[in-house]
């Protein structure tokens, strides 16, 4: 059967052709393709790994960010609280100072008023004495001979009456 008998010429050419094809493709064909495909596969793997790492880093950064924001908020709260305290302190101090000042001024005013009152009283007293003397003088000029004795007497009497007066005023 000729179909099952390999022809030597065809065998020869097939061997030559296949080996040439194999040599050409093994040199310039398949190694290039497979190495490039491997290279790309490696690159894709690396890229995926990098992406995963970036994702992880991103998640870390988000956490860090949240932490920083939280800290900033706390800081803000703290500062606000401090500021409020400081304000309150200042206000309180100012109030205290004002109160002190006011009481000091009041005290001074009171002493002054006291002094004024004293001097006014003594003036009034002398005026009254003078007036009384004058009045008495005018009343009793004619009757009294001795001025000095009279004046002493009148003064004594005025004093007594004044003492009664001031005690009543005080009371």
């Amino acid at each position, binding site marked *: 059967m000729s179909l099952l008998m390999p022809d030597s*010429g*065809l065998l*020869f*050419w*097939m061997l030559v052709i296949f080996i040439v094809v194999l040599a050409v493709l093994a040199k310039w064909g*398949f190694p290039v393709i497979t190495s490039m*495909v491997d290279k*790309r596969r490696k690159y894709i793997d690396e890229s995926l790994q990098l992406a995963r790492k970036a994702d992880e880093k991103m998640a870390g950064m988000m956490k860090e960010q949240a932490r920083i924001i939280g800290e900033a908020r706390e800081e803000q709260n703290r500062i606000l609280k401090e500021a409020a305290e400081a304000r309150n302190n200042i206000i309180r101090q100012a109030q205290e100072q004002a109160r002190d000042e006011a009481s000091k001024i009041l005290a001074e005013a009171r002493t002054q008023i006291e002094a004024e009152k004293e001097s006014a009283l003594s003036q009034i007293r002398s005026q009254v004495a003078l007036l009384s003397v004058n009045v008495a003088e005018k009343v009793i000029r004619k009757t009294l001979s001795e001025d000095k004795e009279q004046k002493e007497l009148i003064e004594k009497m005025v004093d007594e009456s004044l003492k009664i007066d001031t005690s009543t005023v005080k009371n």
Partner: protein
Amino acid sequence: MKRTVRYIIPVLTLLMLWAPAFADGSGDGGKDIDIKSMLFGHIGDSYGWHVTKIGDKEITIPLPVIVKSSTGWHCFLSSRLEEGPVDGLYVAEGGKYDGKIVEKDAAGNEVRPLDISITKNVAGLMINSIIVVLLILGCSRWYRKHDVLKEAPTGVAAVIEPVVTFINDDVIKGSIPEEHSAKYAPYLLTAFFFILVNNLMGIVPVFPGGANTTGNIAVTLTLALLTFLIVNIFANRHYWKDIFWPDVPWWLKAPVPLIPLTELLGIFTKPFALMIRLFANIMAGHAVILSFVSIIFLTVKMGPAVNGTMSFVAVLFGIFMDFLELLVAFIQAYVFTMLSAVFIGLAHVKTEPKDTGQHDADDENRETGIIL
């Protein structure tokens, strides 16, 4: 797509009805068709490449005949053989060397000279090899010219690369241990693409295709022989040990080496099966398609009605067979590559850890542990 499909059947029917009328009009009726010689002519080899017949004129592409006869080397175009013997060389008709170039020796017997003519199959192999080389080099050229990390493959690279990746990753790396696979990948990939392109070109019925290359036993013999050589030359010790002293009860190998003999036979049956499988599948596919086409011509004498229906059926089956052959073309290339890879992989199997081997390893570990 749907519209195209809708038109296929009416067009085919019209063709079927027209074909017998045409055959009836032009044929001379009385001529018997020699189906067997037609079939063998198509699936066999020839010195010229017969393309078609227009009227009475045969269109044949002449191919070079290269013969070393008793009178030395002869080289001429095959068309000269049709005019008569060239330097005592002629194509035998019938007999032992039917269809081959022969010469007469001194005793008058037909003898076969050394014949390395570029026959139809050799020319087909050359054309198909050029196609394979262009495809693969076109692909590798793309990789040389482009940055593989920045661009996706386009053009021929986009077609070839997935197939290369598929064969390389699934078949080659799946069958051969990792450290050896790169060494054998070029051979297996070349074999795959060589067989695939030859199978596909064999289905194409007109000139650049149509040569029944992978359906020729010389071609498959060469491929199987290469696999055989690669498997047995690069096989490791374990492979040979498994053949001559396999792990079976001693009485199967001691007085009568029953299993070793079977294993030894297996060395040859494996590539033999590779050779026959590819050859028979492709040859049978061609024979079936040709037979369906022959039905059209065989039934001409039975009248237009029978011929018409039979032609319709034959063409339908022919189309079906062509689709099947497309599938077979791929499957056979795949199977040849896969089995070759498996055989190569079997020749590189590492020694499996056995009971005694395990103990040795444990002892070694303990020793190294003590030393450490």
